């Protein structure tokens, strides 16, 4: 899969994304975001009362002299943005020639490249019913090949999807807040809401990319068949007709719509990611939305 995943053409398309992202963020602070915590920055932010243990170097002596009140000066600390790329590697992502998983990995690679190029900290975490692996946060454009090598690993040991368990584990293991991009088909029998909420409640900024391919929308089935769920093994006997296919499309559209509406309602960004859509278009859409890189 390595050759197919990140070939020369893919790398050329990454270069293009890099150039486009540079153009979009020209004139802004370069890959930096500020936090209102005491830090080593130089931009004054606020005062607060002195408590024992505070560094006396930040004590405002002028105010103490005039008003006999001990106040400590707060500065905005310059902080790197942490980008977490959460990739669903369950079995449902690997059906029909693994098109969805390949697409998800390419999308993750592209987003990671843009993030690294803008001096952010990028981490990649494959998951299914739990976290499968972890690429520690990397920084700087030179780390892109490390990311690509990590993505080239096959994470096919997992079967089921459990967004809630996996994302709860993620927030427990990563105390540093940041943008959490979840790339998945959201085929979770237990539902997707709990997982996304786990991110939101722990101050992560979730960005949802729902991947689906042609056979998800238009299954090539006809006649009497026994359908077997690739993750759960559940079986359903069905006589597939045109009418039934039409109804299936309706139900699938409903699922997609539910995910989208939930994200919008909760302030999370949502992107539909059909595999036939060029991933660079999707990356640009994410960049233009403003939620990525801030």
């Amino acid at each position, binding site marked *: 899969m390595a050759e197919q995943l990140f070939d020369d053409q893919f790398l050329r398309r990454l270069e293009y994304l890099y150039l486009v992202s540079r153009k979009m963020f020209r004139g802004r602070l370069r890959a930096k975001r500020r936090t209102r915590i005491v830090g080593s920055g130089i931009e004054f932010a606020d005062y607060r009362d002195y408590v024992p243990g505070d560094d006396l170097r930040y004590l405002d002596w002028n105010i103490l002299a005039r008003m006999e009140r001990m106040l400590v000066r707060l500065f905005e600390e310059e902080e790197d943005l942490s980008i977490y790329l959460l990739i669903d590697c369950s*079995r*449902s992502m690997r*059906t*029909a020639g693994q098109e969805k998983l390949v697409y998800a990995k390419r999308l993750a690679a592209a987003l990671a490249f843009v993030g690294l190029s803008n001096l952010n900290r990028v981490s990649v975490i494959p998951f299914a019913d739990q976290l499968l692996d972890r690429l520690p946060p990397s920084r700087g454009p030179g780390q892109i090949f490390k990311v690509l090598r990590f993505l080239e690993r096959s994470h096919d040991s997992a079967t089921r999807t459990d967004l809630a368990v996996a994302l709860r584990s993620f927030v427990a293991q990563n105390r540093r807040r940041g943008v959490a991009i979840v790339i998945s*088909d959201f*085929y979770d*029998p237990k539902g997707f809401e709990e997982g996304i909420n786990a991110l939101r409640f722990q101050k992560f900024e979730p960005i949802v990319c729902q991947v689906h391919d042609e*056979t*998800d929308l238009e*299954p*090539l*089935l*006809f*006649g*009497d*068949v*026994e*359908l*077997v*769920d*690739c*993750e*759960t093994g*559940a*079986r*359903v*006997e*069905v*006589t597939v007709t045109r*009418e*039934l296919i039409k*109804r*299936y499309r309706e*139900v*699938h559209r409903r*699922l997609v719509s539910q995910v989208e509406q939930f994200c919008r309602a909760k302030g999370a960004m949502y992107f539909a990611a059909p595999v036939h859509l060029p991933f660079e278009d999707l990356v640009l859409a994410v960049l233009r939305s403003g939620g990525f890189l801030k």
Partner: protein
Amino acid sequence: MQFLGITGSLFVTLLAALGGAIGLMYLAKLRRRRVQVPYSPLWAQVLVERQARSLWHRLKRLTSFLLHLLVLLILLVALRDPRPLEEAVDGRHLLILVDTSASMGIRDMPGGLDRMEEARREALQALEALSPRDRVMVVRMDSQVVPLMPFVRPAPWVAEQIGQLQSSASKADLPAALSFVARSLAYRSRPELLVITDGAFPPEAIEAAAAVDLPGNLVRRMVQLGSATGNVAITAFNVRRYLANRLNYEVFVQLSSSFDVPVTVELTLLANDRPVHRSEVELPAWGSAVRTYPNLATGGNRIQAQVRIQSGDAVDLFPLDDTAYALLPHDRRRRVLLVSQDNLFVEAPLLLDQTLEVTRMSPVHYRTSAQAAANPSLDYDVTVLAGSAQPIPDRGGFLFLYPTGVHSPWPARGEITDPIIDRFDRTDPLMRWMQGFRSMNIRRAARLSLTEADLAVARTIEGDAMIVRREEGERRLVGVAFPIEESDFPLRIAYPLFILNALEWLAGGQDRLVESVETDRAARVFTGHRAAGEARLIPPDGEPQLLPIREGYVTIFPDRPGFHELTWEEPEEEAPAAEGERSARSRTLAVNFFDPEESQIAAGDLFRLDAGQAEEPQRAGALPVKEEPRFYLVMAALVLLVLEWITFNRRVTV
């Protein structure tokens, strides 16, 4: 309803076995295919909304099973070959008589077909209409009546035999064919006769055919083909060398026309495939013309005459009789040994023929040579012995002029004075072109003693032979009983003619005219030796044919016009024959199709085979074809299968 196919018990057995098999396959089919999907809850939601295993669906499955059983039933019934009861199909004996005469090769049928192709199509159609219990025999009718098979069950190989039928270069013998039909169908059950012909028979043949006593219960059908009327034919063609000038030759051609209007034709003569003469000939309507072309001198001995219509309003559709073939005898030199004591009367006629190679020898020298070594005559075609007779070998030709002495083949019993010849055989080869010996003065003659092998060609009034010839084994003798210099014979025109005739006959050459062979007639060719063997006849464009040699003769029966090559091996035990025609190991034969009746190609009027009981004759394409219920049953089974596939089995799988 009657069934001609498989038996009832086999039908039931097959129905049970195959029906059971279909049942098993149906049960196997009930098991659904397994397909993996990424997220089955979506399908579960769909099914909640719609009950998949509806009553219609279950009914549809049962319908599929029943349709399969119905298809099986229909196919088995088709195998039983059902027929209407009124159709008499049990054990018919059909004799298909196909006219393969020369006129069947005419290309005047719709679609550019010739009559023979149409006849084959009609015969195949009749064959297809037969049931397995019928028997069929196909008979070819031209100058010979040839059955291609005995009565057999209809089978593909019979169709192959019909497909190989070709028109021959001969005329059809309808009476003989119908006689054969009468004998073949005499004791057969349900006899039927189908005659496929163009009906181009002379009235007397139809009359003779009507007189044939055909079986009373014979069902007769006749299909008549063809429509063309006009034709131009070469009905006679000969070529011969001149007696005096053997280098030149003369051609005789007879042309006939069966067009209703006068036509102009171009006649081309070819020698060894090269045109040597071309002329136009006017032919009256339904008339003929005779032409001779004298003094042709081009080299080559294979002469052809080709005729082509010039008139724009006439088309000749029958090419078989547009070309005729003839052979010129080879102009070879003959060696003559003249044993004479300067007898100029004998020498003079020998100078007339430029092809003679004359060697002179005195009687004394001849006798000495004959005693010392081999007889000098062995090296010559003909030996002329003037005066005293000499010893001669047992091979060759010998002309004795007034033979006397102990070596004379005809011992003299005395002498006749002033004999008068008043009887001679004008048809004898020695007497060709001669008017006779009337008032010929002869001073004296020997009274020759004849044997049974002798033939007296000319006699006196008392019956004494004056000119005699004998043929014994490979030796030929001619004797003249009187000394020619003591008669006025040398002063007459008949004298050189006689000498040349005698030399011609003695040399074995009757080859100023090489007669051609006609198609559909047997001809015997002498090989020159008596041993049995095998000869090979190579037609102009066909497969070589091996023929037996019996008593030195090969009997050939050529079936197409053109130059045929006959070759054979000389037997080793026999001494090689003298150089000449008789010793050749191959011989070319000119074969012609000369048949004025067959050249009148107009399709005959419709006629009845038997005025009493025949069905009406039918034109091509009118032959009734039996219905085949099996065909419709198989088609119905196919329709049901397609229906079943569309309603149930159609699917596009992942």
